[in-house]
């Protein structure tokens, strides 16, 4: 029974070949926003290379999970994709990067700019056809984000809307779902992260970014803070960080990781 012997020996060796974790390995656990997670993964890898014996474990779960885990101590740091609210002041936050949000249309849409009032009218269902705002005779497909997401909260806050006011035709969960929905529907309108949208536009995806209030939606404008709709991506901890946690935060906020941040299409914060 050669096959079974092979399998058996593989099974026995497997745990051994896995290797034994070094006794003095230090571990840092981060949980939270899936927007921030890929960036922190990259940061963690570079940090691990520079600090052998250290492990940075990143789990997803959403910004609220990040906050809860940081509070309860289940995670060393929480990843949150927005600024902290007043009732979260017991936590310490460290800004990693900025992320701008803008309105995105399909490339074939002749409309090049929308005023804030028009955007509000479209999102509350008062304007339902593109010809009303100077576009083609095409029904508007409003794309909105699902409840609880920081992007939605930012959007509602800026345009002074409440969640039940929005009349959407499609509700999405993640950024990429939004971009793919927009790219597939000439009559769609939605809001996504500027960095991702810029990348996709350059890559050939048929979308285009609209300016908000006359300010062009570019990563540069987010960096010089002229763009009105942006949010910070932060790490939060229960108490001011010390030890390994502090070393990691200092690393994450330093200039040497600007390239990683920019690769994620976020905006490093000028220091």
């Amino acid at each position, binding site marked *: 029974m050669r096959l079974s012997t092979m399998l058996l020996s593989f099974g026995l060796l497997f745990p051994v070949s896995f290797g034994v974790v070094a006794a003095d390995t230090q571990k840092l656990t981060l949980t939270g926003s899936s927007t921030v997670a890929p960036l922190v993964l990259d940061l963690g890898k570079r940090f691990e290379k520079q600090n052998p014996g250290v492990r940075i474990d990143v789990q997803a*779960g*959403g*910004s*609220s*999970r990040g906050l809860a885990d940081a509070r309860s101590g289940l995670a060393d740091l929480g990843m949150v994709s927005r600024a902290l609210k007043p009732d979260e002041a017991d936590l310490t936050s460290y800004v990693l990067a900025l992320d701008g949000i803008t309105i995105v249309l399909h490339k074939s849409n002749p409309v090049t700019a929308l005023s804030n009032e028009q955007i509000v009218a479209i999102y509350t269902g008062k304007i339902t056809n593109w010809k009303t705002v100077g576009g083609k005779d*095409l*029904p508007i*497909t409003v794309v909105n984000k*699902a*409840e*609880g*997401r920081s992007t939605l909260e930012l959007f509602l806050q800026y345009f002074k809307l409440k*969640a*039940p006011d929005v009349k*959407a*035709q*499609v*509700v*999405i*969960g993640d950024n990429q*779902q939004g971009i*793919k*929905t927009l*790219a*597939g*529907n*000439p*009559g*769609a309108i939605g809001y996504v992260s500027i960095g991702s949208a810029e990348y996709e536009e350059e890559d050939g995806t048929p979308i285009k970014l609209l300016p908000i209030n006359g300010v062009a939606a570019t990563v540069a404008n987010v960096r010089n803070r002229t763009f009105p709709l942006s949010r910070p991506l932060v790490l939060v901890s229960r108490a001011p960080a010390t030890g390994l946690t502090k070393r990691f935060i200092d690393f994450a906020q330093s200039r040497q990781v600007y390239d990683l941040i920019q690769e994620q299409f976020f905006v490093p914060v000028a220091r």
Partner: protein
Amino acid sequence: MSPSRAEAWLSRSLAWVAGSAVALLALIFLFLITESLPALVDGHWLRFFNSSGWFPSAGEFNLWPMLLATVLATLGALVLAVPMGLASAFFVSFCAPPRLADMYQRLLMLLAGIPSVVYGLWGLTVLVPMIAEVAPPGASLLSAILILAIMILPTVALTSDAALRAVPVSYWRGGQALGLSSQTILLKIALPAARTGIFTGILLATTRALGETMAVLMVAGNVVQVPGSLLDSVRVLTANIALEMAYATDAHKASLYVSSLLLTLVVVMIVALGRRLEARS
């Protein structure tokens, strides 16, 4: 150990193992009920059907539109997948030359293993835009039904095929001896003989469709509303849980667990219904 004692020992240990299945189910129910309790005990359970809509931030938790969407999407998928799944099983066993049948069967097995994400991606980038051209928004009950049908078809096909293969040769020989045509034997003798297995397959497919999350989330549009037509955007219960669980606290979270409980209860009802139908035929 004497043979009978060994057998008794075997019987008892196997019984314990089997009992763990019931234990697991009980555990899952216990878990769901415990988490749903906060939303159920204050006598407000009616709000799950009376509220003006699903607005968690305002404390409105009407589950009805989503429950309806789930049921409609599943039924629609079954209407497509059951005939086509059975036809696929016939194809493999009767219509195709052996090589082709083998390839087709492997194809079905592959389709059964593709992650929902991939189906969802295809749906989002190919199917939805196609529907959007005819009738925006494209992401709709129809796209959900189509994607679900594709996903459950292999299950129906593979289990039906296994069931048909298990029909004893004597049945076929008997039919031939009576001078019946192959098709008559298939439809009037083999199919009824294999019906338990086929039924199990359909049941499996139904519950799979009920529980599918990722793919439907990507193509159905996710607007909480009672659909007026196939082309309206809908949100199914599973997609709702996936979208909101990570961001929910307290009452909202408990309400999401209530919807999970509701779904599981629907599964229980379907299984019970299946038993009844089986007993009657």
